[in-house]
């Protein structure tokens, strides 16, 4: 899908978040000089094309008291990744689950999942349960806990520099 100029303006306006009002798409339309119906139609087509996954939220787990943030990485035979990835994603404590390429020899792991917990011990206990419950004892894995977090601003997808000033959000 090729983005039109209107799509790019729309993405630039919403990429930092939706306005918190009862009719958010009407408010966006006002900013862009579009009707509410036109905004909804554009967003639906962006969703259908898979450019927008959904309108949702990003939860910051540290703020919920989940201070232990473990990236658990697994070296799974390629033929098994689909099955085991789906199993892990279904676990309540798993908040992200991705398949990524190995970078041998430095990095042999091809499945990444995030497990959040209140403390490291509880995360490790939960991981042990997951391993034994799904029979993953033979799958090499390791746990990388996070230390400091330096930057959390979320990705930007459209440079706002080329959007006219009056179209930029004032409270982004």
């Amino acid at each position, binding site marked *: 899908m090729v983005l039109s100029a209107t799509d790019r303006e729309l993405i630039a306006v919403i990429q930092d*978040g939706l306005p918190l009002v009862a009719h958010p798409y009407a408010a966006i339309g006002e900013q862009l000089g579009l009707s509410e119906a036109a905004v909804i139609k554009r967003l639906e087509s962006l969703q259908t094309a898979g450019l927008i996954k959904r309108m949702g939220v990003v939860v910051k787990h540290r703020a919920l008291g989940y201070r232990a943030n473990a990236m658990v990485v697994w070296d799974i035979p390629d033929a098994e990744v689909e099955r085991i990835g789906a199993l892990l994603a279904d676990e*309540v404590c798993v908040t992200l689950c991705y398949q990524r390429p190995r970078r041998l020899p430095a990095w042999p792991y091809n499945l990444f999942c995030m497990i959040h917990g209140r403390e490291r011990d509880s995360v490790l206990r939960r991981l042990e349960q997951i391993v034994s419950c799904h029979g993953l004892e033979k799958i090499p894995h390791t746990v*990388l806990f996070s230390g400091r977090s330096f930057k959390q*601003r979320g990705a930007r997808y459209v440079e706002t520099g080329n959007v006219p000033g009056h179209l930029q959000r004032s409270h982004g």
Partner: protein
Amino acid sequence: MDSVDASLVNCLQDGLPVCSRPFDDIADSLGLSVDELLSRVQRLLDDKVLTRFGPMFNAENLGGALSLCAMQVPLDRYDEVTDLVNAFPEVAHNYERDHLLNMWFVIATERPEQAAVVLGEIEQLTGCQVYDMPKQEEFYIGLKLAV
């Protein structure tokens, strides 16, 4: 954060409909007015429980690139390298992790070819090799806060 907040966050994670009054159904199911719901969302944003409320983009389908990258940074240069890496606007977030590969960051670029340029610049500036691991598949996560 009370149990209504937790239910609200769970509902919002599942996604908000794209329609004229997208908050009505969630507000109804939680027994809140839309105004009450909106002020709760605002408070969760103010308290930084939520860092963003809005569209979840699929960067690859937008024509851009998003990748998780790792580097092995000498401990005595960690702060210096952190500053160098974080100065790039393409770096979305950056975590220290306890592994030989001890710096993990996400880069997001509007066009795929920019990613290689940025990673090359980071390698040149820091003298550290960057291992670039873009996602190949995402396994769907429903959500899940204890209510």
